[in-house]
């Protein structure tokens, strides 16, 4: 009987076990580092190696089956001999003014060559050679309609996706390194090692702006407030927004990335989260961390994860939410690393300077499979509950009170575990005192049909509306505080952000009302409508 009891307990933790079920495989490249993000497309993962090739070793690009790790193909450069640091670029089939192309995997090489491979077998579809054969292509390439935009050591080229013919070539007067390019309305924007920001129009006109003394080693980010650049300087680094300094940070900046209204950056000293509001962008939080390479984003059920490789002997990957470090991920081959992980649904592919690629299948292969497994578990759970109920009745009928009480208690417990948490939230929502949300006549008419935030701080009411719509109370609160010059103190806790004080007033704590009602969830999970009114008041 006790074994049955233990089995029942195991049943309760089955969802947890199921969620953590995962498989993974690793592939150790013969030589070299992995310094760029592995790409996962459908059931294939693509990775490349980088290094200083002094002997017989060669840099390779290889494709593997995501699930089994079987190597599908491999291509070795015969000529590249320095660090290959250009991220791989996958192009879906299409057509344009210069022709028609199938799916392509485009690889930029440090010897200035660009090769377009068939993702299926690695065969070269076309190739071309730029004029820079030493540290030639090291920056992130970009796509525009029917062409690939390639920054090189001394300029920029574009190539037709259909046949690799060079469509445009512009020379700058300075050299670049990891000088990724961004496609904007004005043209192609990229930086160089002298702190210049170059813009090449589509007809080939070059204009350059000196941003500051330093090196631009990433693709500039286009925000609604202008271009964001993290400039590496002798003293550390400077973050520029639309030509103005946003902040001075640590050494050797990583390649920043943007998601919605936030920019994520990193240096040897810190990880940085920048929030872009109505008027400008501002640093919202920093965390001590050492990351100098790529960053990547992963959208999970609980929100957004920002992964940053730790470029330290201990290695690992820091996993951040929008504002703070949540956890570290480690492998058995941790060491220095600058490559961001690649993600697809339920798959994580990571590599580092050990030259080992690890691909982890987190257990939910596809949405359909997940639903199927989830459905199976539901059926199993219901069948178990039903069985326990039947056993209870049977043993009651046999007047075996002891066994009936065992099955009866198990039946009631499992039912309660399933029902109580959701029921509790529903009861809270129903019984929570509701306050009428009245439109304050003193508020400007422009605030009508927009999100409005009201703060009651130390007896003074502050209000702001007309802000750009935000998804949750947390984001709206932070932006409203920026606009009203209120200083919030927010702690990142395990369950999410916790508001400690406004302008130093902590009191007995703070609570928010969303459209006149207390929220049963935290501010990061409280979802807003376009016309929501959020009121912050002392608890």
């Amino acid at each position: 009987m006790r074994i049955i009891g233990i089995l029942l307990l195991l049943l309760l933790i089955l969802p947890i076990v199921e969620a953590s079920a995962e498989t993974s495989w690793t592939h150790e490249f013969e030589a070299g580092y992995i310094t760029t993000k592995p790409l996962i497309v459908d059931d294939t993962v693509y990775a490349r190696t980088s290094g200083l090739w002094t002997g017989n070793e060669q840099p390779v690009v290889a494709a593997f089956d995501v699930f089994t790790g079987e190597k599908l193909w491999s291509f070795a450069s015969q000529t590249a001999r320095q660090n290959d640091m250009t991220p791989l670029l996958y192009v879906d089939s299409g057509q344009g003014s210069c022709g028609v192309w199938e799916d392509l995997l485009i690889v930029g090489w440090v010897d200035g060559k660009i090769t377009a491979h068939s993702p299926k077998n690695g065969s070269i579809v076309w190739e071309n050679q730029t004029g820079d054969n030493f540290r030639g292509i090291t920056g992130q390439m970009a796509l525009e309609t029917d062409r690939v935009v390639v920054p090189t050591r001394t300029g920029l080229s574009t190539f037709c996706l259909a046949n690799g013919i060079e469509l445009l070539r512009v020379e700058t007067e300075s050299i670049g390194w990891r000088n990724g390019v961004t496609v904007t309305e004005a043209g192609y924007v990229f930086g160089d090692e002298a702190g210049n920001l170059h813009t090449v129009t589509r007809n080939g006109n070059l204009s350059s702006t000196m941003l500051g003394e330093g090196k631009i080693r990433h693709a500039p980010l286009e925000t609604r407030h202008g271009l964001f650049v993290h400039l590496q300087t002798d003293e550390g680094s400077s973050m520029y927004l639309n030509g103005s300094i946003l902040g001075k940070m640590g050494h050797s900046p990583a390649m920043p990335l943007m998601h919605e209204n936030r920019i994520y950056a990193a240096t040897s000293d810190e990880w940085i989260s920048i929030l872009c509001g109505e008027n400008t962008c501002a640093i919202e939080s920093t965390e001590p961390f050492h990351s100098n390479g790529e960053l990547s984003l992963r959208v999970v059920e609980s929100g957004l994860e920002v992964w940053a490789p730790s470029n330290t002997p201990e290695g690992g990957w820091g996993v951040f939410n929008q504002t703070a470090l949540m956890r570290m991920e480690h492998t058995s081959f941790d060491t220095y690393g600058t490559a961001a992980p690649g993600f697809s649904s339920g798959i994580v592919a990571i590599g580092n300077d050990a030259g080992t690629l690890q691909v982890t299948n987190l257990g939910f292969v596809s949405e359909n499979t997940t639903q199927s497994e989830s459905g199976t578990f539901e059926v199993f759970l219901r069948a178990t509950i039903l069985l326990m109920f039947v056993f209870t009745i049977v043993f009651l009928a046999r007047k075996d009170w002891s066994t009936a009480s065992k099955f009866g208690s198990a039946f009631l417990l499992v039912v309660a575990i399933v029902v109580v948490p959701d029921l509790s939230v529903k009861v809270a929502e129903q019984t929570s005192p509701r306050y009428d949300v009245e439109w304050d006549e003193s508020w400007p008419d422009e605030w009508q049909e927009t999100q409005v935030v009201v703060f009651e701080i130390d007896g003074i009411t502050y209000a702001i509306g007309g802000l750009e719509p935000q998804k949750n109370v947390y984001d709206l609160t932070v932006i409203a505080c920026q606009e009203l010059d209120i200083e919030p103190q927010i702690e990142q806790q395990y369950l999410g952000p916790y508001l400690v004080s406004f302008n130093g007033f902590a009191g007995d704590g703070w609570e928010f009302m969303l459209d006149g009602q207390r929220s049963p969830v935290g501010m990061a999970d409280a979802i807003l409508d376009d016309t929501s009114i959020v009121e912050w008041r002392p608890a």
Partner: protein
Amino acid sequence: MATCLSGNTQGCAVARLSMLGAIGTHGPTVSPAVMLVLYASFFCLAIWLLVKPHRTEEKWLWPLTLLVAIAAVSRIAMGFIPNVMPVTILAVMVGSKFGIQRGFAFAILVTLASNSVLGHGWWSVFQILGWGSVAALASVVKVHDEEGRLLMTNLAFASLWSVPVFSIVVSLSIIDSGMSAIEFGLYLVNGLLFDVLHFLGNLFFAMWFGHSFERLLLMNGPHHQLVQQESEHVSTL
């Protein structure tokens, strides 16, 4: 309440706190140094309670150590299910078997051990008092007969009465000077659903594992008691 013990009022999806935002968080914020002193004091108290001479001749050391380990580990392992853990029912059995003194020591050790993983705070004090109170009450309202045999009916009943005892004592942690008795009552009422879960969890552990726990309690006891218990343990499966 266990679901709220992570310290995030605004993020805690528990009925009690969402109803009564004015209550604040989980009591006063105590500095780490003060908490350290407090825990050290509690630990010393537990040791003193264990080594202090006791009128009975129960062989308590190994059973108690083992049950503390089981209670702490299972509480941590089952932390994802709010309020379902064998700690309360074990507090009842230890209190009933070994008395208030060992029962309170059990409560201290389990709380300090499990909260070292789950998180310490002001609430730890009240959890100690909560389980300590349950053990103390069980030393009076026993679940063993005069010959030391486990009474399953009493244990089932203890699954019920231990819940409000623990719940009320733990909830005292949120009282501050501005809270009225009605507010406190409302706070308790709003946690009733989780108290039901607590009760059903207690009942489950009592029914399924009560006899196993009892055997552990008796592991160093007189042999005839073990034989007696074993002969009574009859199952149809």
